[in-house]
C-alpha cells in the first residue's frame, strides 16, 4: 500500500480551490441586470436616419433603438457568423439556384409605439434602402445591386429574389444600418421622417436627444430577445474633444467609447487605471480616403489625381502615424489580410504604394507639369474630429507640399463637413472614409463606384462599373481576386478616383465593469447593446 503523499494532497487542495474559483468566476460572469451605461461619442449625428447616414455618430446612439433582420453574432463579432435578429431560427440558406432567400419573422414583435412589426415593415424598409425614390439618399443602395425584388407573401415571411447568385448578399443584409422602420411611419410621414424621429423595435426606447450633449435610451420591456437587454438604459454623451472623452473614462463619468482611442491614450489610461481598465484591440474595416472633386478643375484630370496619390508615402506614414493615431495598415481597396486583398507585392504595383517615394514624387511632379498645373492651392475639406481625420489631414498636407502643392485646409464640424462633402461640394479635395461594418470586400469596395450613394467625388467611370458588375457575378475566389486587382488598378491608379491613405486600427480601452461587449473589426458592428451588462461588484 502506498503511503499518503502530502504533495498530492496539497495539489488536490489547490486543484479543488482553483475549481471552486472557476465555478465562482463562472457564476460571477452571469449577466447582471440593471444600471445605466454611459458612453462617450466623438461626434453629433447629422440625422437619426440610419439608411442615409454613414457615421458611427448615428450608429452608437441610435442602433440600440432598432432591430435588424440579421446581424453579426454579438457574442463573436470577429467572425463572419450571421445570426437572426428579427428572423426566426437560423439564417436561411438560399434556394432556386441561390437566387431566393426566404426569411420567417419572429411573431409578436412590436415597435416602441405599440404597432406590431410584420413582414410588410421589413419590405417597406428594404424598398427604401434598395430602391429609394429620386432625392431620397440611401448610402448602401449599391450593396444590393443583385436584388431583383423584396416581397412579403404573408405577415411573417419576407422573400428576397436576386438577379444572380451573390455571396455579397447576406453580408449586405447584415449591415447594422439596415434598421427596420414601420411601414406606417413611412407611408404616413414620408421617407424623411426618420431624420428627426425614432420609432424602432430595438432593445432600448428613445427618451431624449439634447443636441450637442446627449442621446438617452431606456430599456424596452417588450424586447423580442427574452431576458434582454440587461441594462436599464444608456446615455450617449457627445464629447468632441478626445481629451474630454479620455478624462470621462478616467474619471468614471463614462465607461466606454466604442469607436477607438489612439495608442497614447490607451497607454495613459492603462497607467492611470490599472486593472480597473480592460483593453480590446482589433484590425478595423475602415480606410481613410482623400476624395478629389472630379467636377472641379484641375481635379477632373486623372493625371492630377494620380499626382495626389503618388505624393503620399504610405509606408512611412504607417510606421509613424500608428504611434499617434488610430491608423496602422497600408492597404488597397480591400480590408488588409482578407483573401481578396492585395499582397504587398501587388500593392507596390499601384500608384502611391511603391517603396521608392522619391521616384513616385518625381512622377507626381511630372504629371502636374503635363497637366499644366503650377502653384496650385488645394481647397481641402476636413472633419472636426481629431482621430484620425485631423492627424492624417495634417500629414497629407505635408505629403502634398512635397510635390509643390499648397493646401488651404478648412476643418468643419461634422454636420457642415457632411453637407460640404455630399451636397455643396465646395472643396477641391475632401477627407473621406470607407468604413464598413461586416467584412465583405465585394460590397465594401462599392464605395469607389461613381454610381454609389456614398461616393462623393462626382466622378463618372463606366469602365469601373463594368468591372464591378463582373466581380459581383464571379463565382470562384480566384476569379474574384483577379477582378479585384483590375478594380483596384482602375479605381486607385489609372483613374485615381479616390486615394486610400491608411487603414484604421481599433483600440477600445474601457472600464472593466462593462461586460458582454466584444470588439468587432468595425465600430459599427455589435452596437445594439442588448447583451451588454454592468458588473455591479466592480463599479
Amino acid at each position, binding site marked *: 500500500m502506498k503511503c499518503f503523499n502530502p504533495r498530492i494532497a496539497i495539489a488536490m487542495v489547490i486543484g479543488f480551490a482553483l475549481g471552486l474559483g472557476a465555478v465562482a468566476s463562472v457564476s460571477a460572469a452571469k449577466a447582471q441586470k440593471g444600471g445605466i451605461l454611459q458612453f462617450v461619442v466623438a461626434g453629433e449625428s447629422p440625422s437619426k436616419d440610419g439608411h442615409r447616414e454613414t457615421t458611427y455618430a448615428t450608429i452608437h446612439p441610435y442602433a440600440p433603438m432598432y432591430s435588424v433582420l440579421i446581424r453579426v453574432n454579438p457574442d463573436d463579432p470577429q467572425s463572419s457568423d450571421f445570426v437572426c435578429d428579427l428572423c426566426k431560427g437560423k439564417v436561411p440558406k438560399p434556394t432556386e439556384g441561390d437566387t431566393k432567400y426566404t426569411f420567417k419573422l419572429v411573431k409578436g414583435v412590436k415597435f416602441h409605439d405599440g404597432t406590431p412589426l410584420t413582414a410588410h415593415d421589413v419590405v417597406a424598409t428594404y424598398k427604401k434602402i434598395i430602391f429609394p425614390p429620386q432625392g431620397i439618399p440611401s448610402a448602401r443602395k449599391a450593396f444590393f445591386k443583385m436584388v431583383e425584388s423584396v416581397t412579403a407573401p404573408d405577415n411573417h415571411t419576407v422573400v428576397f429574389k436576386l438577379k444572380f447568385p451573390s455571396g455579397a448578399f447576406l453580408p449586405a443584409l447584415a449591415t447594422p444600418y439596415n434598421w427596420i422602420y414601420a411601414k406606417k411611419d413611412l407611408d404616413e410621414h414620408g421617407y424623411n421622417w426618420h431624420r428627426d424621429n425614432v420609432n424602432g423595435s430595438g432593445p432600448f426606447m428613445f427618451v431624449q436627444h439634447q443636441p450637442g450633449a446627449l442621446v438617452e435610451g431606456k430599456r424596452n420591456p417588450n424586447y423580442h430577445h427574452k431576458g434582454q437587454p440587461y441594462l436599464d438604459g444608456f446615455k450617449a454623451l457627445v464629447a468632441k474633444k478626445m*481629451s474630454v472623452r479620455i478624462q470621462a473614462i478616467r474619471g468614471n463619468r463614462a465607461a466606454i467609447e466604442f469607436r477607438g482611442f489612439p495608442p497614447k491614450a490607451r497607454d495613459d489610461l492603462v497607467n492611470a487605471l490599472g486593472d480597473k481598465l480592460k483593453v480590446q484591440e482589433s484590425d478595423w474595416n475602415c480606410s481613410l480616403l482623400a476624395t478629389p472633386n472630379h467636377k472641379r478643375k484641375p481635379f477632373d484630370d486623372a493625371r492630377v489625381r494620380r499626382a495626389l496619390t503618388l505624393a503620399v508615402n504610405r509606408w512611412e*506614414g504607417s510606421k*509613424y502615424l500608428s*504611434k499617434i493615431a488610430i491608423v496602422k495598415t497600408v492597404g488597397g481597396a480591400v480590408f488588409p489580410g482578407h483573401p481578396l486583398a492585395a499582397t504587398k507585392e501587388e500593392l507596390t504595383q499601384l500608384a502611391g504604394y511603391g517603396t521608392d517615394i522619391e521616384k513616385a514624387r518625381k512622377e507626381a511632379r511630372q504629371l502636374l507639369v503635363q497637366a499644366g498645373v503650377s502653384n496650385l492651392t488645394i481647397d481641402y475639406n476636413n472633419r472636426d474630429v*481629431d482621430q484620425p481625420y485631423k492627424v492624417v*489631414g*495634417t500629414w497629407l*498636407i505635408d505629403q502634398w507640399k512635397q510635390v509643390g502643392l499648397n493646401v488651404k485646409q478648412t476643418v468643419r464640424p461634422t454636420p457642415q463637413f457632411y453637407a460640404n462633402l455630399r451636397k455643396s461640394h465646395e472643396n477641391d479635395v475632401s477627407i473621406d472614409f470607407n468604413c464598413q461594418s461586416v467584412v465583405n470586400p465585394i460590397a465594401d469596395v462599392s464605395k469607389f463606384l461613381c454610381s454609389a450613394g456614398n461616393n462623393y467625388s462626382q466622378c463618372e467611370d463606366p469602365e469601373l462599373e463594368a468591372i464591378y458588375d463582373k466581380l459581383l457575378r464571379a463565382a470562384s475566389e480566384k476569379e474574384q481576386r483577379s477582378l479585384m486587382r483590375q478594380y483596384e488598378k482602375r479605381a486607385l491608379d489609372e483613374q485615381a478616383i479616390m486615394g486610400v491613405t491608411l487603414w484604421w486600427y481599433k483600440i477600445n480601452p474601457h472600464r472593466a465593469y462593462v461586460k458582454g461587449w466584444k470588439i468587432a473589426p468595425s465600430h459599427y458592428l455589435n452596437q445594439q447593446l442588448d447583451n451588454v451588462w454592468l458588473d455591479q461588484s466592480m463599479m
Partner: protein
Amino acid sequence: MSTPEIAVITDELEEKRSLVAKTWDLCRRQPLGAAGALIVIVMMVAAALANVVSAYDPELNDLEHMLEGPNAWHWMGTDEFGRDILTRIIYGARTALAIGFTAAFLGATGGLVLGVASAYFGGIIDLIVQRIVDVVMAFPLIIMALVVVATLGPGTENVIIAITIPFIPQCARVVRSSALSIREIPYVDAARALGFSNGRIILRHMVPNVMAPYLIMLTAFVGQAILLEAVLSYLGMGVQDPTPAWGLMLKGGAEEFLESAPWVSIFPGLAISLAVFGFNLFGDALRDVLDPKLRRM
C-alpha cells in the same frame, strides 16, 4: 572747428543724451511698462525675422523626430509631427501679431470714427448709435467672437472679422465720452461759425484730441485680440493646421500629450501668457503716460 559748429554738436549730443535720459527716466518711472515694451519688441522682432532666426520649416513634418523632448537641436522639443516647437512659436508670433494688430487697428479705428461721429452729431444719431453699441456690448467678447466665427466659418480672415466686431463698440463708447467734452470747447463752435465742414471739424479738431484714449484702447486690444485668436484656434474655430498658431499648438498638445509630452503644450501656453502679459503691461504704462491726471500725480 569753429565755435558755432561746436555749439551745434554739443546741442545734438545734449538732445541725444536727453532722449536716452528721458527713456531711462521713463523706464524708471514705469518699470513694468518697460518690461512689457521689451516683451512686445522681442516678439515683433522675432515675428519679423522668423525665417532668419528659425532653423526649421514650421510646417514640414519630420516624423523620425516626433515628440522629442527639449534637446540641443530642438530647444523646446518637437510635436507629434516632428515639427520644431520653438520654430512654430516664433512663426506663431507672426500669426498672433498679424491678427492682433489688424483686428485691434480695425476695431479701434472703427470705434474712433463711430464714437466721434456719434458725439459730434448728437441727437437722434447719437441715440441710435449708442443703443446699437449697448446691444453689442451686452454680449461677452468671446461669445460675440464665437457667434461671428461660427457664422462665417473658420480661417484667418474670419477670425480677424470676428475679433474686430466686438472691439468697435468698446472703443466707440470710450472715444465718445472724450469727444463729448471736446465738442463743448469754444474752438469747435468757432470752427463751425467760420463755416468749416463737419468732416474738417471732426478730422482736424476733434480726432487729434481723442488720440490718447484711442491709442490706449488700441494697445489694450492687441493683447485681447491675441488671447481671443488663441481661444478661437484652441476651440478649432480659428486658424487651421498646419499654420503655426499658439492656440492651435496648445490644443494639439493638451489634447493628447499633456502627460507623455508636456512640452508640446507648455511652451505655446507660455508664449500666449507672455505676449498678453507684455501687451497689457505696455498698455497700462501708456495709459499712465498719456493720461494728464495720472501724469500730474
